[in-house]
């Protein structure tokens, strides 16, 4: 299993994929830093903005920083999803169609080890990537605005968890779908999850039970979205009052906290995906 995992990591390094990803990520962080710096110049961070007829006060610096940092977390999730799909979209059917897989699976290591090794490689690389880029966004935000999120480690862990779920989904997809079909399918699933999350935000703002139910069901079916929403929620976990309410109305407010059942549910979800992948792969003729 570790042989396959190191082979997969070596492949990504030698094909210079990680190098390209790192260059693009540096560009993303550079643009993010430039954007937040310029935007921060346009606000008065010390103001307590009065909203509405009752003169409710909102902390502009927190609203600004948390929203922009939420945006950077979305960027991290999106880029890590691209990396996750790259690592896993062609692992079974794609590689089998190209003749790359057969020489590996006839070795004593077997099919389950190939799947497990590929999953480990994808999960490790994507988690590391999330950690690095998340830290980059965090430091840039702090350097410009002086703000720290209420929780620092938990959102990073949850973002990494979200990407690991996507790695697993893509791996399962690769057992049943061709490489291109699987890549497209995973992107669409990713998009569907985000849309469901936004619907949930709107549902919270409008207090619509239907939209909130749609978001909740989607979060159970696609728990990467629940993890992402909970990560957004965690960065302002201790923020209170109308600043928190204003944040919840925005696209990166993380209005839906997940609760303690999320972690065990995600572990169970990953175990179910692993069983599905192993069962599908073991029955597949190559």
């Amino acid at each position, binding site marked *: 299993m570790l*042989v396959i995992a190191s082979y997969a990591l070596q492949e990504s390094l030698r094909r210079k994929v990680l190098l390209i990803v790192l260059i693009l990520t540096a560009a993303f962080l550079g643009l993010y830093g430039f954007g937040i710096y310029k935007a921060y110049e346009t606000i008065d961070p010390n103001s307590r903005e009065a909203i509405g007829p009752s003169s409710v006060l909102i902390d502009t610096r927190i609203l600004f920083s948390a929203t922009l940092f939420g945006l950077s977390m979305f960027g991290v999730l999106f880029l890590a999803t691209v990396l996750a799909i790259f690592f896993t979209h062609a692992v079974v059917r794609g590689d089998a169609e190209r*003749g790359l897989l*057969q*020489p590996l699976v006839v*070795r*004593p290591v077997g099919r389950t080890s190939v799947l497990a090794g590929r999953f480990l490689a994808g999960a490790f690389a994507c988690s590391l990537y999330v950690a690095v880029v998340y830290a980059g966004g965090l430091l840039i935000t702090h350097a410009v605005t002086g703000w720290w999120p209420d929780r620092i480690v938990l959102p990073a862990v949850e973002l990494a968890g979200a990407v690991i779920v996507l790695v697993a989904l893509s791996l399962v997809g690769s057992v049943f779908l061709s490489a291109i079909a699987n890549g497209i399918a995973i992107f669409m699933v990713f998009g569907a999850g985000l849309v469901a999350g936004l619907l949930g935000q709107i549902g919270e703002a409008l207090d619509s039970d239907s939209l909130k139910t749609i978001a909740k069901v989607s979060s159970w079916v696609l728990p990467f979205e629940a993890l992402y929403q909970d990560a957004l929620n965690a960065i302002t976990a201790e923020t209170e009052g109308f600043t928190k309410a204003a944040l919840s109305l925005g696209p990166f407010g993380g209005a839906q906290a997940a609760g303690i059942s999320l972690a065990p549910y995600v572990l169970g979800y990953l175990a179910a995906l692993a069983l599905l992948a192993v069962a599908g792969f073991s029955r597949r*003729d190559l």
Partner: protein
Amino acid sequence: MTVAFSAQALAKHYGSVRALAGVDVTVDEGELVGLLGPNGAGKSTLVKIGCGLVRPSGGSAVVCGARAGSREARAAMGYLAELFRFPGWCSADELLELHQRLAGSTGGEPERTELLELVGLSDARGRHVEDMSKGMQQRLGIAQALVGTPRMLFLDEPTSALDPAGRRTVRGLLEELRRRGVAVLLNSHLLSEVELVCDRVVIIHRGEVVAAGRPQELAKPRGVEIDLEGGTRHFEGTGREDVPRIVADLVAADEKVYGVRVLTSTLEEIYLEAVEGESS
């Protein structure tokens, strides 16, 4: 003699398509068996079942005493696929090292050196697969199949991309493997090659074995040709056992005999007869 590979009543259906319909094949230790048949006859399916890549619909396949596809069977065999590809970023040495690790081989660098020498790639040790010709990749594929000293080797069209010199290298390699006691099931369209190196041939047609045996056993007599002073005479309906009598009669009749040839059908003729002339 120990059986290295045996398939009994092996069947495979892909939906409504019948690829194998109860095939019986055995390969003994140190034996080189050629698998012949037109495209779509079921040869590659048979090889893939032996390697555990395809699950049979019926019957059984055993590799070195273990069920085909089991960990023990995979540990005892080597395989070169008909359509294979190695990662372009790997060098020849790195690829063999990867397969050593996957196969649990302890041969290390000496094994890699020997295998690269065997297939004539010693000079290309550090060359990346993407910089190799198709023929070089095929030879590297054979070296890869030999990692871990397999007792049973499945080769699916191993010489299809090789030039005549490369084919000769592979023929020599197969003979060397036979000397070492390795059993080989060679799936090939090149009848001349099979005829030159294989101990036995199995001809498959429409998922069934239609002929099997040593090429000499399968060959049918095609008469005797004798070179005489006045030219060559052909004696229809005769065979090797008739030669002494025919020569004695000719000598008694004052004919001068310069040469005698016993004619038998070629493997190509045997093959075409078995598959009813169907082209590949």
